[in-house]
Every structure is written in structure tokens, then in C-alpha cells.
């Protein structure tokens, strides 16, 4: 059963008791009495499968009212407080960040690259980047131009077969990128705008239904593309040295050090197989066209 099939009252009841759902290979359990969080989950996780019960849960997150006026909330991950007595208006974005933290900042069998990933007909493009480079913005745009969303934030690379496992959570956009994506994809579904978060003005985009439906289909990477949002820049796709690409990805992976030799070999194999580029852009239409051309130029599906 998808979360959207639960009536609002039933969704709220389950959230009060602890609602489990699956995002790719990860199972999350969220417990909260807050109506704002329930609305967020009901809207932005609408297409995800609700689980009646889960034997193994990867992330336990709870959001509870705090303080004697109950106008503040505290957010917990696996019982440990992550945010203590923050304003209730921050509950939704901070719950999203805690879900992120709880799922990805833990021991994992995957190499967790800090990158967005989209896929089209068997070929995935990985977008590593620092905050502000434009990886989420590009992902949000491309998934409304025929690409499938695998993730806008963390790319789990399976060392065994070199494929990226989808985790198509809601896409988090900040500041001007919210309007840029609205203009680019007027039919995209957005959650509310959260005006005063620690990361500035923020909004979430509903992941496309097709991406969620196919979240058990890993994809083979064909490109590693470093986005560089540069105001006023014409789109420019230029080769990026593979040695530097590996170093960048290693430095920004969440658990490269933990995986050790296995992590290096997985990453080296990824870089071996992929063409590496840097994409400077300021306009999403032009960037999408540039990437469509790149996709068309590599006709074969990368082999095993």
C-alpha cells in the first residue's frame, strides 16, 4: 500500500504510533504527533510503500513537542536527540535532515557518494558537488525531462557490481533554485516553502511517481559530471581529469574511510567506467539540452 492510499486520519494515527516506509533499500520509521510533519509525509512521500511492520529498520526518527508551551519540538534519531527544542515551524525541514542523517550517516555496505544521480535508458549520470554547486537543482530539472531520479543528495554505490542504488527521496531546493525549477517545470509538485531554515529558504519537490515505482532498479553509471552553477555562464561541458575526479569523490563520500580498500576499488572502478566532465551552467534549459546531447552521443549501455 502506498502512503497516498492511507486516509489522512489513518496516516496521522500511524505516525503517532510509528510509521514505517521504504526508500530504496532503506526502511525508515517516523514517529510524531505533529500535523505539519504528517502533511509533509502524506504529500512528498505519497508514492512510497507503507510497511505494516518491519523486522529491520535502518532509521528511527521521532519528532516530539517540547517545552512547557509546546511551541518547540525536539527531534531524535535512534533515541538520541539531534535537534533540541527548535521552533515548531522548523519541524519539517529538520525532520528531513534528520532522516537524511539517520539513513546515510551510519555503517553501510554501499559507498555513499555525496552526489545527485539521474538515469535514462540504462545510463546514469552522477553529479558530485559541494553545497550550492547545483546538483539538486539539476536533478529536479532533469527528472522533468525524461530522466529518472535515483537521488538528489547521496549516491549509494554497490561495490559488488558498481551500480547505483536508487534512493529517490524528495528533492531539497534552496533559495533561487526554487523559482528556477518552478519556471523550468511548472507541473512539478512542491511542498511548502520554509523561509527561515539554517540553510536559508527551502522547499521540497515531489519525486516523480515513476522514479519511486522503479526504486528497486539500480542503474549503471556512465558519467561523473561536476556541476558548477555560475550566474550568467553559458553552458559548457568540458572533460574533467579522472584522477582529480576520484580524489574529489573520495574526499566528499560519507563513508570512504570506513570501507577502506573496498571503497577505493569501488570508486576506482566507477571512475574507470565513466566519462568525467565539469558542467558550468546558469540556465536549466541549456544545461538540460547539453546533457541530452551528451546522453545521445553515448549510445551503448555501459557493460557489466
Amino acid at each position, binding site marked *: 500500500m502506498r502512503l497516498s492510499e492511507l486516509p489522512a486520519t489513518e496516516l496521522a494515527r500511524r505516525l503517532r504510533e510509528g510509521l514505517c516506509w521504504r526508500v530504496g533499500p532503506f526502511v525508515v520509521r517516523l514517529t510524531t504527533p505533529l500535523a505539519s510533519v504528517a502533511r509533509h509525509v502524506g504529500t512528498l512521500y505519497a508514492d512510497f510503500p507503507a510497511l505494516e511492520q518491519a523486522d529491520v529498520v535502518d532509521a528511527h526518527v521521532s519528532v516530539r513537542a517540547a517545552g512547557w508551551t509546546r511551541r518547540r519540538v525536539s527531534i531524535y534519531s535512534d533515541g538520541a536527540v539531534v535537534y533540541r527544542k527548535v521552533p515548531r515551524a522548523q519541524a519539517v525541514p529538520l525532520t528531513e535532515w534528520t532522516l537524511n542523517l539517520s539513513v546515510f550517516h551510519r555503517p553501510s555496505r554501499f559507498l555513499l557518494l555525496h552526489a545527485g544521480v539521474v538515469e535514462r535508458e540504462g545510463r546514469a549520470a552522477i553529479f558530485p558537488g559541494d553545497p550550492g554547486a547545483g546538483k539538486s537543482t539539476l536533478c529536479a530539472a532533469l527528472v522533468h525531462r525524461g530522466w529518472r531520479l535515483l537521488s538528489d543528495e547521496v549516491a549509494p554505490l554497490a561495490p559488488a557490481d558498481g551500480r547505483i542504488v536508487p534512493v529517490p527521496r524528495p528533492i531539497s531546493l534552496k533559495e533561487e533554485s526554487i523559482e528556477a525549477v518552478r519556471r523550468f517545470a511548472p507541473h512539478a509538485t512542491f511542498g511548502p516553502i520554509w523561509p527561515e531554515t539554517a540553510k536559508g529558504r527551502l522547499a521540497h519537490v515531489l519525486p516523480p511517481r515513476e522514479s519511486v515505482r522503479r526504486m528497486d532498479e539500480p542503474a549503471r553509471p556512465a558519467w561523473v559530471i561536476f556541476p558548477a552553477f555560475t550566474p550568467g555562464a553559458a553552458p559548457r561541458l568540458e572533460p574533467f*581529469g579522472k*584522477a582529480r575526479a*576520484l*580524489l574529489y569523490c573520495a574526499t566528499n563520500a560519507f563513508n570512504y574511510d570506513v570501507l*577502506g*580498500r573496498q571503497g577505493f576499488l569501488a570508486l*576506482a572502478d566507477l571512475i*574507470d567506467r565513466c566519462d568525467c566532465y565539469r558542467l558550468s551552467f546558469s540556465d536549466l534549459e541549456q544545461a538540460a539540452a547539453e546533457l541530452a546531447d551528451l546522453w545521445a552521443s553515448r549510445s551503448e549501455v555501459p557493460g557489466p
Partner: protein
Amino acid sequence: MTKWTARSCDLIWRTWDQERFVVYHVPSGDTHLLSRVSALALKHLEDRRLSQAELTSLLAESLDCQVDEPLGTYVEEFLVGFDQRGLAERTS
């Protein structure tokens, strides 16, 4: 005389670009980006134990250049860097 060596079993190499080499140091878990010359020096030390002077001569031969003071200084800096990062070690 002090000699230097690097243990092959500790190093995993990957090379893509002509001027840049990546080496993973298994004991520390660190990944290093090396220039062509420093990679060549480290590979020589993997092959056999060498003094600084021997390594300088070998590099000069490989690079088809003269053994001179700048190259000697360059090699000395490599060795200090390798030592600090655990990539190579002194042996007596």
C-alpha cells in the same frame, strides 16, 4: 647509509591521466594524488631499496635529465613527504 623502500603490498595504483597518478595506501586508508615524477620515484622504491643518491640517479635516467642540485632537492622533498605519509620508510 640510509636506504628507502616502499612496500608494494601497501600500495594500490590507478593511472588515468598522463600527468597524475592516484595511489591508495592500505595501512592508513589515505588516497594520494601524485605527479608523474613523484609516482615514478615511489615506484622505484617499490622495486628496490635505494639511497637518496641512487634514487636521484635513477630518476635522472628515467626522465632523461642531469643529476643536479635542483633534482636532488626535489627528491629529498619527495622522501620527506613519503615518510610523513607512510608511503615509504627508511631502512638501514
